[in-house]
């Protein structure tokens, strides 16, 4: 309270000393020499030109409801310099790991983002920084073993139309278009002959609230 009082006295003294008064309406008659908001001398003509909404704060007409941003989350995380990140360009390149958890990749958690953003290519928002080290993050606590569930199928265009086993093997057996090659060890033969979707669940869309199977 004491501080506020001193500040008020100082403010009044400042306004009185520069002779301009504490006007907020800059279009009012201005003296030949006046000062701007931060106390610098400016020409009288200059002060008469400012928009009325400039001194009065933001026009209510342009205010909108926005997201709640946690401190420290104002900017999207950057991408570390790993082989996978270096080569990743399309959305699918990233989701292959970050949607499914393959290779211990941190699984994405885009809570509250519009779906159009989560469908866009990731580098639209996330900047790849050459030379930046992989962050050491603790894996999310899970009551399950990491290998307990089969990896999910990313929601990308190349996966949407695949149904038959051959559709999948076309890429995942040959490595075509950089698809990860399938290695199924010690599995019953019957399982290896059925369609892949019997075990692997397709992510239909990268929903904002989607979280990994390991975290459930």
């Amino acid at each position, binding site marked *: 309270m004491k501080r*506020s009082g001193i500040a008020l006295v100082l403010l009044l003294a400042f306004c009185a000393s520069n002779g301009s008064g504490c006007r907020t309406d800059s279009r009012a008659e201005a003296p030949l020499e006046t000062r701007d908001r931060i106390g*610098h001398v400016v020409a009288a003509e200059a002060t008469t030109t400012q928009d009325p909404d400039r001194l009065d704060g933001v026009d209510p007409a342009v205010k909108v409801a926005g997201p709640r941003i946690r401190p420290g989350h104002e900017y999207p995380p950057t991408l570390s310099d790993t082989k996978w990140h270096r080569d990743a360009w399309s959305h699918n390149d990233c989701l292959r790991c970050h949607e499914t958890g393959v290779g211990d990749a941190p699984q994405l958690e885009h809570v509250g983002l519009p779906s159009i953003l989560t469908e866009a290519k990731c580098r639209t928002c996330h900047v790849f920084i050459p030379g930046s080290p992989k962050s050491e993050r603790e894996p999310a606590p899970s009551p399950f073993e990491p290998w307990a569930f089969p990896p999910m199928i990313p929601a990308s265009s190349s996966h949407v139309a695949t149904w038959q086993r051959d559709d999948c093997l076309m890429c995942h057996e040959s490595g075509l278009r950089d698809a990860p090659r399938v290695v199924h060890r010690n599995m019953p033969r019957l399982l290896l002959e059925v369609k892949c979707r019997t075990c692997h669940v397709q992510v239909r869309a990268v929903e904002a609230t989607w979280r990994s199977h390991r975290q459930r």
Partner: protein
Amino acid sequence: MTNSRREFMKTSAMLSVAAFAEGPRCMSNVLAKSGDDIEWVKSVCRFCGTGCGVILGVRDRRLVALRGDPKHPTTKGLVCAKSLFLPKIVHAEDRLQHPMIRKNGELQRASWEEAMSLVAEKFATAIQKHGKDSVAYYGSGQAMSEESYLANRLFKGGIGTNNVEGNPRLCMASAVGGYVTTFGKDEPMGCYDDIEHAKVFFLVGSNTAECHPTIFDQILSRKQKNHDVLVIVLDPRYQPVGSIADIYMQPKPGMDLAVFHAIAQVIVKEGLCDMEFIDKNVQFKIVENGKPEQVDFATYEKFLGDHFTPEQAELITGVPAQDIREAARLIARGPTMSLWTMGLNQRTRGVWANNLMHNMHLITGQIGKPGATPFSLTGQPNACGGVRDTGSLCHILPYGRSVKKAKHREEMEKLWGSEPGTIPAKPGLHTIEMFRALGRDEIQAMLVLTTNPGHSLPNCGEHRDAMGKPRPNKPFVCVIDAYPTRTTELADVVLPAAMWSEKSGVFGMSERRYQYHPQVCDAPGEARSDFDVLLDFAKRLEDAGVVPKGYVSSKFKTTDDVWDEMREASKNTAYDFYGMTRARLKKERGVRWPAPTTDHPGTARRFVKGDDPCLDAGPYADRSLAEGDVKFYAAPDHRAIVWLRPLEGPAEPADEEYPFSLSTGRVLEHWHTGTMTMRAPELRAAYPEPFVEIHTADARELGIRSGMPVRIQSRRGEAVIKARVVDMPQRGTVFVPFCWEDDAGFINRVTIDAYDPGSKQPEYKICAVQLSLA
């Protein structure tokens, strides 16, 4: 990391005590940490011409966060990394805060009064001693519309010179030339809604994935959800759009005109034309002995058949004939949306290339229907609304008017209150010739606003000398900018500018949408908006007697006043946006012109009855049309023109002495000369230094490996840049982004300033260079 309940209680208690002891200041810090006190304000991004709707997070008059605006009608929440880092860019530590005057070769701090007096005196003296055409204005597609309009008004209608130019000459002029020569008026007829309807995307000379990321994302999303959506790419360099391409055609640099003609030849030969549309809406022309002559469809068919079969085009361009055939069939099937940028525009035959792009849409009727449109993408946030539409180039006047037409000059003189005959009938100097005239000391005073020609001009060494080389009678150059740049270092006076979020005004983006951006924070130090500086400058020129008394000072106090005059100027033109009042723009998320009345919702597709209000009332009205009919009302005889253009290559093709062809461009994380994006640490770290892409086979022959410094030398200058050996450029070509400002990597010392004879746009995309290990 989770706190225990005990730790939480302990912390809360400590904060409460601290808040009580320290009063409101500390309390606000506590609130700030919670993230709840951010005020969100709708605005528009200030980078490329996509015009992404954003919401700005503001706390204590500072920009603290930015997000895409999910309610924005076209970008729907999409936003790219450059935009997300704008808060760091706006509040960068090295913002210019005080005016500076060069004294004894050094820029020294000065007061506004001292700086503005000097600027006005230099301009007034030049006008009085050397005439009105001895002064010039070089503006920007990043200034607000009101600022560009005011500068144009001051120079053309106040001083009486047409030496008004802007950096859109470097990026958009050929697109303007293409639209005007084909359809009679500038600006696209389609809109972003067409992305949601197109089944074929034809991307030409556009690194959409990196330079218009949110447009690319919308195309990507459409393709992922619809398996009958196909993407065709035509670009000499293989680039990230290839990740979604169904057909990728890589022509030799500068030879794509042959590909366009060959596509048209297949369409004509295979009977894929829309003859009904052609009969109603199209005419054919060829230039003979310097004059356009009307020809018929049969002549066009013969022209194509004689010179441009797919096989002939394959020989000329290297693009497989089969790819051309497949592309032609898909384009004719449609609905086809063509998108292009600098690869087509920055060429000595950029206007012709634009014409041939339009030809394909006209002969197939792929225009004026949902998903079918030729759509030029723009590189700056306000090149369209601010410079093209306001007529802030040397040959045009606001809203489709020309300086050459007496009626148009009279209209503007009347509206501006200029003496009749003030606006010269002769166009002023276009950008390249303007800077050459500066170098010859013919221009004695130049005002550069919100742009960085000391870095961005081609053959930049020569033009930097023009701006800054000490000499007797050296012209006076005043630069207004927010940051120190390669141009401010050449200036005689530097004025600190307020940035986008520090002033309020209107941006007009690629799809004719005008959007309001509000001021949400204060400019640092003594920085002032360009608008304030222009008003001050105008008043001083009035006082000096070189501009009529009260010409500007008695009319405008705020940007709102200017906006009202702009609306008036657009009335009864093809651009009519009289219905976009300031209050409306503040409330809505932009409106697409024409929008002649306050209740008009804006126009998605021009030239279409039922959509374009110009066909309902005003000088272009036609009541005989049925809903959905197309009428190119601004074209001669109301018919768009299919041009029979000959094949012409680049001004400086590769040769024995300079065996490689250089192309320049951008990367995803940096924008233009990097003035802004290099100030966000994350973006800078993404690409801290430039690179030159060299094809693997060429690199092997030259003994170059990735990371080695390579000297790139042209007939004009050289740069030393680290190699990136990659099969993205084709053999015999190299690619360098131009965003870095250090001397060694300054690629615009190497590029050529040869320009298109029609649009006067320089050929950044092609020049001949030598490569050697540095």
